[in-house]
């Protein structure tokens, strides 16, 4: 794909009640945004297993968005708090593993915030596009983690 302009693929894990409905509202309002996102709907962000995110990166996703209800608004009372807590532990772990934390975003978007959905998607797509394709995982078997300057030179290349 090197000859064409790099277009990142973003996987978005959304809760059914708030952000998924917010994304629908953006559609109802015909608000345009970049087409790089693929949505996976789950009942609640609290039900998102961190392994889902790892799997998405492993498959080649360039960025990931996890988005649910605002604090206090969770359809299941407290699911989003669990998600936030899990996230607080998981994000530094990803960073430790060498994945640039800017590739992953967590946001609260309510069912009434079609506009915020559009802004969030455009912002993460632009951010990830600037970071370039995520190749860290593909090379993980042979090289060290993605460094702050993106992918480190492969050991096989350095010697």
């Amino acid at each position, binding site marked *: 794909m090197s000859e064409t302009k790099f*277009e990142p693929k973003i996987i978005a894990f959304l809760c059914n009640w708030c952000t998924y409905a917010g994304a629908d509202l953006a*559609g109802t309002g015909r608000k345009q945004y970049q087409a790089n996102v693929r949505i996976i709907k789950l009942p609640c962000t609290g039900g998102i297993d961190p392994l889902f995110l790892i*799997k998405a990166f492993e498959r080649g996703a360039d960025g990931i968005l996890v988005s649910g209800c605002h604090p206090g608004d969770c359809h299941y*009372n407290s699911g989003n708090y669990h998600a936030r807590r899990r996230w607080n532990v998981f994000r530094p772990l990803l960073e430790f593993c060498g994945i640039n934390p800017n590739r992953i975003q967590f946001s609260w978007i309510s069912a009434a915030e079609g506009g915020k959905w559009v802004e969030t998607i455009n912002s993460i797509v632009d951010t990830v596009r600037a970071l370039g394709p995520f190749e860290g995982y593909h090379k993980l078997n042979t090289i060290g983690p993605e460094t702050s300057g993106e992918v480190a030179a492969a050991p096989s290349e350095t010697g």
Partner: protein
Amino acid sequence: MSKKIGVFVCHCGTNISATVDVEKVAEEAKKNNPGVSYTTTYKYMCSDPGQKLLRDKIKEEGLDGVVVAACSPKMHEHTFRNAAKKAGMNPYHVEISNLREQCSWVHPDKPTGTEKSIDLVRMMTEKTRKDKSLNPIKVPVTKRALVIGGGIAGIQAALDIADAGHEVIMVEREASIGGHMAQLSETFPTLDCSQCIMTPKMVELAQNENIKLYTWSEIESVDGYLGNFDVKIRKKARSVDLDLCTGCSSCWQVCPSKKIKSEFDMKLGNRTAIYIPFPQAIPSKPVIDREHCLLFKDARKKNIPPNDSKVCRKCLDVCPIAPVKAIDYSQEDEFITEKIGAIIVATGFKELDDTSMYGEYGGGKYQDVITGLQFERLASASGPTEGEIQRPSDGKLPEIIVFIQCVGSRDPAKGCSYCSKTCCMYTAKHTMLYKHKVHDGHAYVFYIDIRCAGKDYEEFWLRAVEEEGATYLRGRVSRIYKKGDKLVVLGADTLTGSVVEIEADMVVLASAMKAQDDAEKFAQKLSIQYNKDKFFSEIHPKLKPVESSSAGIFLAGTCQGPKDIPETVAQAGAAASKVLALLSADELEREPVVAKVDRLPAPIFSTCIGCFYCKRVCPYGAIAEEDIKARDGSVIKTVARVNEGLCQGCGLCAATCRSKSVELAGFNDEQVYAEINSVEFN
């Protein structure tokens, strides 16, 4: 055995097909995917012939999985699952690809939209491959409704349900039912007296044997689910025993604290510390305002139980009930739990009464700049002036009165962009009421637009102009300032392009209808959604206007958005009919999206290791500990079990489980991984 999957791509007229090449999407769905045995496109999948096509093809092609690529699953997932069910398929093998809201409507470029659509369809095809047959869960129904709020919406809904023979619990946080409608003087467009039509309904409610009324009470918590809610009600300490009190009025006549601003009269009149909010209150029994009562003030100051204070016990002394007096200073908040099948939320609105943010209108400092509801109280025969229009500062009859519309409405700068809908009509009504009482007075109205859409509404406001001679000026008011005992109103008349200066005696602001101050907190208590203005959200703006986002909880009246009395009554009736439909069944069917802890043959029994982290995260207490026992009764191990009746299907347990023993039906790991794996990456 691999599934035979059919993919149905909808054009949605041209809503999808204009920006997505639907034929290509259908073609690609089949390519390199041996599981997909049938694909087609159709103009309107949701139409009757569209659904028939789906049913026929399921039978003809022997499909055991279906992907409909159409609008959001929130629109028609139910429709297509039902159609599949009719064709003899388990409906949970149907998945929806959201091509409209999340693709064709937001990506105008056709190649881009088509490429994304192909991905979206493939994701759902792969998910469908992993779908399992699920059966709806049956739950029993408690045949009792809860109505929260005792305004006209709540009263109407409660009466409708009770008249159909079901029990109703009504909870009202004020000391009397009646709400805002009881405060109004006369109602548009008929000018009939509000109290004359409202109070008989209040009495009817109080006398209905099917209705249990809790006034001066609030909802503490709501647990459970559709058909089986557990509602905890806080009966606030009233200091008066409702069973003993006869409402004889002796106590409030002797109360020495007579200068407390009456909330019912919008602070234009006074009340006592032990009081009934208004003469026709239901129940017609008083409450002690502990904040202002001398005895309670004294007890607080000295930090002693109220019963020990001797400052003033006039109400207790005068109470004629014997041997036990009806007044009890030591009463405390009481908690009651009721089992409920369905809930109607009718908590109403709050008038924008704090006008301090409107510096141009005096910032709330001028006594003679009043709000719409205050004018209602002035015009009401039961109000502080007994229906005479007297201005608050000196009681003078205002000869020139100015009404300003859209105060707090249609004003994004003040954080309120919506139209309050009722103000055009009530201002027209106010000008009439004013002219009926002050014959030689003159009324001016500043307006942005006149929005009187409703049966006989247009005619009504024209009457205000043509017959009652109100002067309508199209424009805003830039400033109000005091000049002697007059208020000078500076405004613009944009139709003549001139500046208008009116020396008025009184100004009435047509204040907006706002959501209740605690609407957000209350919505969180009930797990219902609300919009940016804190009005509670219906689940579908057109087709489900009274259903909230939580099953079994319905909305009526202005808690959902500004509306007038006829609309409120109609919506309350609609909500009541929805509740009646629920209560008419002995058992309800619920979506089978619930968690399950695995069970395996001996000697493993379950992969659950019994850490019960799932139990700690479950918001519904749906996880129980189950002993797996040997034949001799000894416990082999203790594992988790999900109570299907309580589980709401959030999946917290599944994500928390360390041994991967919990599966959320409809969203299990296999299905999610299938979706992730099917996305085509660069």
